């Protein structure tokens, strides 16, 4: 019985991590967001643009309703039905998406997607389109949460 309930608890654990970045003339520029099963939301954004190091790291605990909304957005996107085997390998520019939801676990990587034109020309336009819009929706949600919690209005 203990094993069963532990397995159930494990299956209910939800985790998502998205990373996009590259190393270039402005150093390691990246954006990363992560939501832990505990509700801890982490956000990091780093750039060395024009030699000015700017690193933003934020962490806040979100309520269960927020976690449920992440799950809903991810489930409705259909990303867990996709497969990255036909996606290009990331080179200098890289995106990583890892999701653990119910008993599904995906870990996808691909190069940065410039635009929908790049997607149309690829071997798996449906998969990449799903990835592209989901990551945009996730970034949007995380940025709204982080800004609402941490950013004061300018005077």
């Amino acid at each position: 019985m203990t094993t069963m309930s532990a397995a159930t608890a494990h299956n209910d654990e939800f985790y998502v991590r998205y990373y996009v970045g590259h190393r270039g003339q402005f150093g390691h520029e990246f954006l990363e967001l992560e939501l832990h099963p505990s509700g801890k939301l982490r956000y990091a954004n780093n750039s060395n643009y024009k030699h000015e190091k700017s690193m933003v790291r934020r962490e806040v605990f979100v309520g269960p309703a927020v976690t449920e909304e992440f799950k809903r957005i991810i489930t409705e996107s259909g990303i867990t039905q996709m497969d990255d085997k036909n996606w290009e390998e990331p080179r200098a520019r890289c995106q990583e998406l890892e999701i653990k939801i119910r008993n599904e676990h995906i870990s996808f990587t691909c190069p940065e997607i410039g635009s929908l034109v790049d997607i149309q020309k690829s071997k798996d336009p449906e998969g990449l389109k799903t990835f592209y819009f989901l990551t945009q929706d996730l970034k949007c949600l995380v940025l709204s949460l982080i800004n609402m919690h941490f950013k004061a209005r300018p005077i």
Partner: protein
Amino acid sequence: MQRSPRDDNPDNDHEAGEIRSRHPHHQQRTIPRTGAVRSVEGWVVFVTGIHEEAQEDDISDAFSDHGTVTKMQMNVDRQTGLAKGYALVEYASQTEAQDAINNLHGAKILGKTIAVNWAFVKPTGYR
């Protein structure tokens, strides 16, 4: 609706209050509630179940009935341009935010039932 005197102290981020809406599913809520925390300029509630054709005005009108909305963010789906389904609404005081939760959780906007909960909470026990 009884309001505890502690609700009026803005520095008091005690346990979030009971949901007093008439929504039938409340009795079955099993998601545990932890204490809400204040954001940099106020108290933020998280609204979900928003109808895809809802406009920002639909949300701000409903939420302005329970206090002065100081900030609001309602995002759109990046592919369709329609409402994504959630919004963040900020009030200056915890009392106003709690009032919005108590009255609007389970309410309908454009015929669809919304949920209203605290956006940000105290750290939970594990990592």
